[in-house]
């Protein structure tokens, strides 16, 4: 039992955070917890939640791996769905889903290849990726516009709790639950915790790292679908903002970039915390400065939760 607690120590902070914010939100903005309120919350928060989930396996795989390119990647899938698929009359759900997931996986495989075979550190590889994709996105679609496939655009209603968005989130959790029970996932954790131990004890660290990235690809694809559903159009820049948000959520969720630790529960909690902060702040009439309030609070939350995490876990994290 207390083994369980100690193993989930990293969840204490984010859990408390969500709890506190949830209560405040319930008081300040009760509509949030109505049926429709929750449906809307789901809709708006889904892209961030999935983005945060997506970068989790990469962080777990170690080497200070934080995927800076996640935002532009989601943006890329978003604009290409609108321009390449819808633009050419390809709107069948199966095709769109398949495309979104395959495209994101292809990119992640590319990143993994750079990290594994060229042996470039993940942070630099994904930094380059960020720049490349954010440029490419603007080339494909120079400004917001276009239309999502009808069925996808309709997700934007967000009045039904039992919506595709919910199913996607559930699916994501199921995928994770299943995957995290496979030995492969244990290999990834071991590799993240200590790559040399993994290597010498016979773990195929090449496959393991590819696996971590491909898994990220799957979630990134789903995130892109949800974003497209939310804005019902293509936007070359909206995705980029997701990078820093997702990393914030990840870290708020208690996953440390030192690898080996963490899971999507934390990332989901982190993303929820960010959503709730936003709801709470919007419930005050801050007017023109409301945007800045959000930024301020994200920052403070990040710093404070890092400091708390430092206190709750005593081991020092080695430099990237």
């Amino acid at each position, binding site marked *: 039992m207390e083994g369980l607690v100690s193993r989930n120590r990293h969840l204490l902070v984010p859990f408390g955070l969500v709890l506190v914010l949830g209560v405040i939100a319930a008081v300040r903005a009760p509509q949030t917890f*109505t049926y429709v309120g929750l449906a809307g919350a789901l809709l708006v928060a889904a*892209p961030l939640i999935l983005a945060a989930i997506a970068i989790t396996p990469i962080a777990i795989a170690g080497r200070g791996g934080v995927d800076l390119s996640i935002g532009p990647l989601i943006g890329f899938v978003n604009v290409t769905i609108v321009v390449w698929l819808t633009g050419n009359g390809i709107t069948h759900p199966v095709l769109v889903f398949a495309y979104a997931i395959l495209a994101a996986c292809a990119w992640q495989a590319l990143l993994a290849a750079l990290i594994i075979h060229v042996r470039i550190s993940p942070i630099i590889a994904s930094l380059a990726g960020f720049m490349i994709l954010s440029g490419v996105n603007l080339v494909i679609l120079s*400004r917001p516009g276009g239309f999502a496939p009808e069925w996808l*655009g309709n997700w934007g*209603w967000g*009045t039904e709790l039992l919506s595709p968005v919910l199913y996607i989130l559930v699916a994501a959790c199921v995928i994770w639950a299943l995957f995290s029970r496979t030995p492969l996932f244990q290999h990834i954790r071991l590799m993240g915790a200590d790559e040399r131990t993994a290597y010498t004890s016979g773990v195929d660290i090449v496959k393991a790292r590819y696996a971590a990235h491909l898994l990220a690809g799957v979630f990134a694809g789903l995130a892109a679908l949800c974003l497209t559903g939310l*804005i019902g*159009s293509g936007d070359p820049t909206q995705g980029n903002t997701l990078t820093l948000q997702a990393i914030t959520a990840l870290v708020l969720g208690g996953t440390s970039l030192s690898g080996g630790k963490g899971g999507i529960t934390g990332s989901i909690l982190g993303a929820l915390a960010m959503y709730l902060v*936003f709801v709470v702040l919007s419930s005050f009439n801050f007017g023109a400065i409301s945007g800045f309030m959000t930024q301020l609070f994200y920052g403070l939350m990040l710093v404070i939760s890092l400091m708390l995490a430092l206190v709750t876990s005593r081991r020092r994290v080695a430099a990237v």
Partner: protein
Amino acid sequence: EGLEELPPKLQAAYQGVDEGQPIGTSAYRDWTPRSGPPWTIGYASSYAGNTWRAEGLSRLTEDLLPVYRQAGLVDEIIVTQSDLNDARQIQQIRQLVDQGVDAIIVCCSNPVALNKAVEYAYSKGVVVFSYSGYLTSDKALNASSNYTLGGYEIAKAMIEEVGGEGNFLLVSGIAGAASSESFDTGAMRALEEFPNAKLVGQVWGNWTDQVAQTEVQKFLATNPARIDGIIAQGSQETGVLKAVLQSGREVMPISLAGSAGAACYLKQNPDWISHAFQIWPPGDEMELGFNSVIRTLQNQGPKLQSILRGVYRLPAAEYVASLGDDCSVDSTAYIQPGIDVWFPDDKAAGYFLRPENPLDWAAKNVN
């Protein structure tokens, strides 16, 4: 269809309208809000960085709110700002609806991204009005001047100003924002009409003097080519002018549309450029939007989805007349025609099925 319901002189304002902009008959021809008066109105702005938004906001909260509260029509205005993040603006709109507002004014975003939120609002009996820019949803109402027409005329006038040929720089607003795109569409049309007018570059100034100044600064710094004229979307020309002054180049003509700072430079250098425009005077545009919102809440029945008025050109002397000699290039104020010019009752009447001055309506219907 629907357009011919308008008095002919109003129809003129619709020519060359951005084909993205819906001008069909409105969904609010017979519509009553879920409650009130008094009404709560939400203002979901996408951005708050520039003098233009500030001016519009102050018209809304400093001038209009007191009067309409007095009249028992409005009791509160809730303002939100999304830092150009669509997801946030969507969330804010939904949250305003859930908080129980009766109408929402949104400013200037991606014409598609907010649609579902708009329809959500509509389903809850809340009307969403886009001022300064349009939304494509048929549940949205739009009120502004015809920015495509504005872009066309401003560009055309600029090109003619420098003799129908030369190198031009286009300073746009925010990529993807309806108003910015409409303006550019018009401007491009004009450029096509002049084979020897070459567009050598485009920068996005976010309608913000500082941004425009930095972007133009960077452009001039990295582009050796000579620029004969700068076609600028309104409300950032002061920044553009400062950039040019700072770059050390001699000041070429820059299109002017309301900013008092640049206008002051014109007053001090009368032969700089011969004319100026009124395309989106911030306060008046806001009042146009607000006025239309109130009329809709009063079930006056807007005929069309988009309430469009024309832009107009005026000679330099007349434009700067209102400025004193002590004016400053750093001024953040606006030269505005005033609501009686921009959206007077008789004009407004043309756009509604059961027109009436909102305050008179109040006098009758609010005890």
